[in-house]
C-alpha cells in the first residue's frame, strides 16, 4: 500500500487547505499569529520527507508504514478541532481553544514552559528512580524473606490504596523542602506497584527452578540474584510501567504543594486563570514526556527480556 505512506502528507495538505479556504469565525478569539498554519506546514514538510525516505530505505519504511496511520490520525484530530473551534465556533470558546491558540501559548510561554519542564523532569526522575529502586529491593525482600513478608506486606496493603493527596500535610511537615516532599510523594506512588509486582513475581516462580539450581551447586544468595530476580523480571517491568503512569498522576498533586515551577504547577495555575489554551499546551507537553519515558522503558525491557520474545506477549 503505497498510499498509506503518503497519508500524513495528504492530511497535512488538507489541513492547510481548510485553513486557507475557510474564513475564521469572529466569535472565536484569534491567536496573535497563524501558529497552527505554521505547524501544519512544518508537519506537512516532515511528512513528505518521511514518505520519500521510506521509498529509499527499507528499515525506515517498516517503521513509517506502521506509524503513518497514527500520525494521520493526529493531524486529522487537530484539523477537526480547528473546524469546530476557530472556523465555525461550534464548541464553547473558553474551554475549547483553537489549535492556533494552543500552539500560540507554547510559543509565547516557551521560556517559562522550558523552565517548568526542567523542574518537572528533575522531580519526576528523582521520584521515579528512587521509588523504583526502593520498590525492587522491598519486593525482593518480601518475595524471599518470610519475616519481611510478615511485616511489610500489611504495610503495603494499608498504604497502597491511599491517594497521594492524603499525605500532603504529613509530608509537608516531615520534609525540609517542598521539592524533597514532592519527590517523596512521587517515589511512594512508584514504590507501591513496583514492590507488589516484584514480590508477586518472585512468589510465582516455579519451585523446581530453585531446586534445579541447588542441585547444580548454587548457594542461597546465588539463587536469589541469579534465579529469583531474573525470573521475576517480566513482572517487575509491569510494576515499573504502572509506576510511570502513577508518577505522572502524582506529579500534578506533588506540584500543588509549594512548587515554584513545574508543568503540573503551570497547568494548575493556568486552570485557575481560566486560560485553557495554556492548560492544553501544558497537558500536551506532559503527554509527550510521559510517552517518551514509557518508550524508553519499553526499549530497556526489550533489551533485558530478549529471552522472552515469543514466550509472552503483553
Amino acid at each position, binding site marked *: 500500500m503505497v498510499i498509506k505512506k503518503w497519508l500524513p502528507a495528504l492530511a497535512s495538505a488538507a489541513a492547510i487547505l481548510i485553513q486557507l479556504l475557510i474564513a475564521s469565525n469572529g466569535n472565536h478569539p484569534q491567536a496573535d499569529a497563524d501558529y497552527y498554519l505554521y505547524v501544519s506546514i512544518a508537519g506537512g514538510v516532515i511528512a513528505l520527507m518521511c514518505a520519500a525516505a521510506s521509498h529509499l530505505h527499507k528499515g525506515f519504511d517498516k517503521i513509517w508504514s506502521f506509524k503513518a496511520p497514527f500520525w494521520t490520525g493526529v493531524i486529522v484530530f487537530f484539523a477537526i478541532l480547528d473546524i469546530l473551534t476557530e472556523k465555525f465556533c461550534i464548541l464553547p470558546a473558553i474551554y475549547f481553544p483553537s489549535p492556533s491558540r494552543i500552539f500560540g501559548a507554547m510559543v509565547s510561554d516557551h521560556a517559562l514552559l522550558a523552565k517548568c519542564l526542567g523542574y518537572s523532569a528533575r522531580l519526576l526522575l528523582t521520584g521515579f528512580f528512587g521509588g523504583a529502586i526502593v520498590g525492587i529491593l522491598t519486593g525482593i525482600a518480601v518475595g524471599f524473606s518470610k519475616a519481611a513478608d510478615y511485616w511489610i506486606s500489611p504495610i503495603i496493603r494499608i498504604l497502597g490504596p491511599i491517594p497521594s493527596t492524603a499525605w500532603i500535610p504529613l509530608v509537608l511537615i516531615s520534609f525540609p523542602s517542598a521539592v524533597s516532599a514532592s519527590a517523596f510523594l512521587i517515589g511512594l506512588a512508584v514504590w507501591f506497584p513496583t514492590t507488589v509486582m516484584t514480590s508477586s513475581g518472585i512468589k510465582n516462580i*516455579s519451585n*523446581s*527452578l530453585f*531446586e*534445579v*539450581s*541447588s*542441585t*547444580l*551447586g*548454587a*548457594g542461597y544468595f*546465588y539463587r536469589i540474584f*541469579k*534465579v529469583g530476580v*531474573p*525470573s521475576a*523480571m517480566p513482572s517487575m517491568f509491569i510494576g515499573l510501567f504502572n509506576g510511570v503512569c502513577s508518577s505522572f498522576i502524582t506529579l500534578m498533586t506533588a506540584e500543588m504543594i509549594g512548587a515554584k515551577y513545574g508543568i503540573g504547577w503551570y497547568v494548575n495555575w493556568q486552570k485557575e486563570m481560566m486560560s485553557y489554551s495554556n492548560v492544553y499546551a501544558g497537558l500536551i507537553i506532559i503527554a509527550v514526556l510521559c510517552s517518551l519515558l514509557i518508550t524508553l522503558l519499553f526499549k530497556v525491557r526489550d533489551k533485558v*527480556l*530478549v*529471552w*522472552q*520474545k*515469543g*514466550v509472552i506477549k503483553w
Partner: protein
Amino acid sequence: MVGEINVKDVVQTFIQPDGSTLTALDHVNLNVKAGSFVSFIGPSGCGKTTLLRLIAGLTKPASGEITLDGEKIDGPHYERGLVFQNPTLFPWLSIYDNVAFGLKARKIYKDKKQEVSEYLSLVGLENFASSYPHQLSGGMAQRASLARALIGHPKVLLLDEPLGALDAFTRMNMQDELLRIRSEKSMTMIMVTHDVDEALYLSDKIVVMSPRPAKIEDIIDVKMFRPRQRNNPEFLRLRSQILKTLHYAGNEPEQEYVI
C-alpha cells in the same frame, strides 16, 4: 569407583490437605553399586519421585537415612545431579549459559570454560549455544538439561522420567545417548521410568515398587550384553516377569475386548 548409594530403612510421610498423614515410602532399603545403572519402576503415585528427591537431598526423610559413599546425605549437592521429567531450563539464559550455570554458581567457570562446548556437543547442541530454551524442541531442551546436570561431573545422576514426554524415536536415541555418556564418564545413574522396555534396555538392576505405601516388590538383575536387542528371548522373559510383578503388586488389569 565412587557413587554408591545406600538407602537404609527410609520412611517418608506427607501431611495431606485434610490433615491425614500419607505414608509415601515405608521402610525402604536399597543398595545401588557405584557405576551401575538402576531403574525404579512402579505404578504412578507410588513414591518413585519421592525417593529420588530424598537421594537428591531436596527433602529429608521422616526416618532412616541415605548415604553416598558412606556419607549421610544432608541437602542438595552438585555431586548428585538431577534431571526432571520436564526440562526446567532457565528461560532467561541461552542454552550455553544454562549449561554453564553450575560452573558459574560454583565459581569454577573461568577454569572450565572449554567444557561447556564439549558438553554441548556431547548432547548434539553445539549449533544451538546461543538459542533460548523456548526456541528448542522438547527433546533438545531435555538434552540441554542433561548436559547441564552432567557438566558438574556428578557422582550420581538422578533422572526422573527424563524421557517420558518424548516421542518414540527421540526417546530411543536419548536412551542410546545415556548409555554412551555413562560409558564415557563413569557415573552411577538412577532413573525413574514407567516404561518396562526402557528399564530393560538400560539397566543393570530394576527396582520394582509396589503401590502406596511404596515397598520394594522385587529387584531384578539384568545381565544381558549391550547393545541389547528388544526382541531377544531373555529380554522378553524379563519383561513378562516384571509385568507380572506389577500386576500382582497393583490391581489386575481390566479385561478389554476390542471387536
